């Protein structure tokens, strides 16, 4: 197999892997009817939280989607804390203090997660650089390659042309 073919196959395999790995966003389907909260702001905070908090015992479900026992308990707890007048940030703090960052679908930006957050941007930059390089190369004006015989013909023609104009 030629190197070019291996490269092409590898590229396709890479693209396919990327497709498979791209996670599906959590579905917006409640496992149980949403409870009523005292104010519209609290209602909003509560709904945002149960969308963004992960059900720890499920595979890729948030608290809203899941009907697992633990998810129901954590929904109840979230409801309780928000009704108490606590903010979005305070609930996030409460949950991550107990279950770790994994409980959040969106990991916080900090030293240990820097690689995670910067990787897409680095990948994008590298990709753009490669594309730019290829485009430049494709449209670059290349001097034509002449062999010895062709070069002689061309030189003769140039010489003759010079004689014509001078005479």
């Amino acid at each position, binding site marked *: 197999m030629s190197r070019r073919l291996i490269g092409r196959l590898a*590229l396709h395999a890479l693209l396919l892997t990327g497709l498979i790995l791209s996670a599906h966003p959590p579905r917006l389907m409640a496992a149980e009817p949403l409870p009523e909260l005292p104010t519209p702001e609290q209602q909003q905070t509560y709904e945002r939280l149960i969308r963004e908090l992960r059900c720890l015992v499920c595979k890729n479900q948030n608290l809203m989607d899941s009907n697992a026992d633990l998810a129901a308990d954590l929904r109840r707890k979230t409801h309780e804390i928000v009704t108490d007048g606590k903010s979005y940030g305070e609930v996030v703090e409460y949950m991550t203090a107990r279950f*770790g960052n994994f409980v959040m679908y969106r990991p916080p930006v900090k030293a240990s997660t820097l690689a995670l957050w910067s990787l897409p941007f680095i990948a994008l930059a590298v990709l753009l650089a490669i594309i730019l390089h290829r485009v430049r190369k494709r449209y670059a004006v290349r001097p034509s390659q002449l062999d010895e015989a062709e070069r002689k013909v061309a030189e003769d023609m140039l010489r003759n042309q010079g004689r014509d104009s001078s005479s």
Partner: protein
Amino acid sequence: MHMIPKAFFKRYRGGLPFVVFCALAVLLVISLGKNPEHIPSPLIGKSAPEFSLPDLGNHRTVSTGDMRNRVWLLNIWASWCAACVTEHPLLNDLSNRKIVEIVGLNYKDVNADAIAWLARYGNPYTHVAVDAGGDIGIDYGVYGVPETFLIDTKGLIRYKHIGPLTREILDDEILPLIELLKEQET
């Protein structure tokens, strides 16, 4: 872009995706060997969340305050938990050898079921705190019963294990740590 010599691209144009693919494959193979259930606990090194709960089978209460100045294990279990049965002989053994005090946290269970379960499989616990609602479970970040916490004399959590204990985990990690903590005390 200009940092990379042009010759690199010329030579490895077909090879670059191949290299990236290999790197990704290696990363995935490594990740495959990791246990996705194993999530590091943010509670290690922090104070054990306090509780004061009814003691199973009597009319007293059991609290974290009762265990102050002792090295102890907190074992979260329930009669509905199948994996608890598999680790239970190990806890019975620990208790018989009087190595460490074990407090049980009976998580989201029915008292009668819990008492019957202990009568059947043995009771290694000095106390069994009843957490029927699961609120204390949430404070301890419990999501996979059974879970076991090792708590030192200052009330700090020193070790946490999610899922059933095994002989290896006890002998290689928990028992040496208990020895160390007891030595530091004397």
